């Protein structure tokens, strides 16, 4: 027999009986951050590769989604903070070893880059909005400048957006105290997932059939890469030390097995992969449209499931005999 249990009260909120500090707000931010990165990268990449004709939506209209989606994500992230009035403290120092600090500063750079990216294609993508801005000298000049430097702006956007996409994964893998996150694969996995959700968004929103098909093909490759990264992640943990193997049990028979394999891998990756394969061979659009919707859903589920399992995985855990409801009796 080997038993370790708490004999005095420890019922710290969000920590006992199991760690559950981060919920949907953070998962949503990680998802929307990844989507923003993907959106900016594709908009920039199509510009750099001069795909204006093949991908008119991605080159001229997609970029506008980035700051909207990112702002939504930052709002949910703000909701998660426990000491909200002190949010400005993210910007009074730079902690070189903290991925979260890197993230805070990356977000600050992403906004102006994203705005420049939008302005560089505003006249082509949203002529009515652009004509409003053209009414002012400053607006006209800024747009002229952005259009003249369209490729340079796109080239600048790619590394910053990639940093945004990959940091969300590195952020989790930096927590050595949470064995389930102890894998360097998380960074690339979150980046590829962000790209995949952005490709799905284009496949969903583009009007031109050939553009939809192009992004369906791109997404197909990205899903395959994502599947490979998931496999590497599993191999990584299963060949780790005791606490990694223990952490992996939550998806190999443990409480998260169904949600991980059925909802994330099955519905979020494999089914859209098959649907996209069929779409390329001419599947009816009304059915094919399910694929990008599932990819977007899978992107969110990936963050939520990683967040939930990681928090529960631990080096130390004690059962407690303490019943929190007993405290209420003090007040009766």
């Amino acid at each position, binding site marked *: 027999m080997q038993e*370790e249990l708490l*004999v005095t009260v420890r019922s710290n909120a969000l*920590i006992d009986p199991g760690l559950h500090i981060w919920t949907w707000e953070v998962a949503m931010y990680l998802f929307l951050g990844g989507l923003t990165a993907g959106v900016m990268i594709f908009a920039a990449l199509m510009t750099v590769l001069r795909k204006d004709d093949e991908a008119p939506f991605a080159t001229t209209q997609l970029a506008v989604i980035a700051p909207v989606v990112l702002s939504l994500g930052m709002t949910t992230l703000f909701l998660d903070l426990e000491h909200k009035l002190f949010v400005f*403290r993210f910007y*009074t120092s730079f902690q070189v070893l*903290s991925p*979260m600090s890197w993230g805070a500063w990356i977000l600050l750079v992403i906004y102006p880059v994203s705005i420049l990216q939008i302005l560089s294609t505003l006249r082509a993508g949203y002529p009515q909005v652009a004509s409003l801005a053209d009414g002012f000298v400053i607006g006209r000049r800024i747009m002229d400048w952005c259009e003249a430097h369209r490729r340079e702006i796109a080239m600048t956007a790619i590394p910053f957006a990639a940093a945004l996409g990959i940091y969300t994964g590195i952020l989790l893998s930096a927590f050595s105290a949470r064995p389930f996150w102890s894998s360097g694969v998380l960074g690339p996995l979150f980046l590829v997932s962000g790209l995949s959700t952005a490709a799905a968004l284009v496949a969903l929103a583009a009007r031109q059939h050939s553009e939809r098909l192009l992004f369906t093909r791109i997404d197909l490759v990205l899903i395959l890469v994502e599947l490979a990264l998931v496999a590497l992640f599993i191999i990584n943990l299963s060949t780790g030390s005791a606490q990694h193997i223990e952490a992996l049990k939550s998806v190999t028979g443990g409480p998260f097995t169904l949600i991980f394999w059925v909802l994330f891998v099955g519905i979020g990756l494999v089914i859209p992969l098959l649907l996209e394969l069929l779409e390329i061979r001419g599947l009816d659009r009304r059915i094919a449209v399910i694929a990008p919707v599932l990819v977007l859903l899978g992107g969110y589920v990936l963050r939520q499931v990683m967040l939930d399992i990681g928090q529960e995985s631990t080096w*130390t855990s004690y059962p407690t005999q303490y019943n929190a409801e007993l405290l209420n009796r003090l007040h009766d």
Partner: protein
Amino acid sequence: MTRFAMVIDTRTCIGCGDCVVACKTENKVPEGLNRDWIVEATNGTYPHLTTEFRSERCNHCSNATCVTLCPTGASHHWKDTNIVLVDPDMCTGCKACIAACPYDARLVMHPDGYIDKCTFCHHRVEEGLDPACVSSCPTRCMHFGSLDDPGSEVSRLLRTRKYKVLVPETGNEPNVYYLI
């Protein structure tokens, strides 16, 4: 870095919980929250059982992942010692340090929202006193002092007795020692 350590003799600890009460009183820890706690570990097969009591808290790690991962610098080592503190005016309540602690030794200070933890009673240490938990222990199983001073009680105990720290595999270099 000046290293302060706590050395707790599991052979004389009876798990009475006085250290827990002393901490709550000294630091005015809100109802329902705890900076320290006691674990009862039982090993063996009846009738050959051994029981160990451990008074646990923040390990004030020399390589503290909670300090490394804090995005604002709120979580810091106090005055070039290993004592880990959180500055409430710097803390955003992002909870990264809670996730970063392999010992689950941090808590959200409700209703204020900043992160709170054991401070090794640094306000007492500054005055040359022991932390409240150590000074209240009725069996005197808890000891506190500097590991840099070879003549200190903690240094002497670690030289002469068998000891362990909790999950050293984390690489955090904890500074709460248990005599076994």
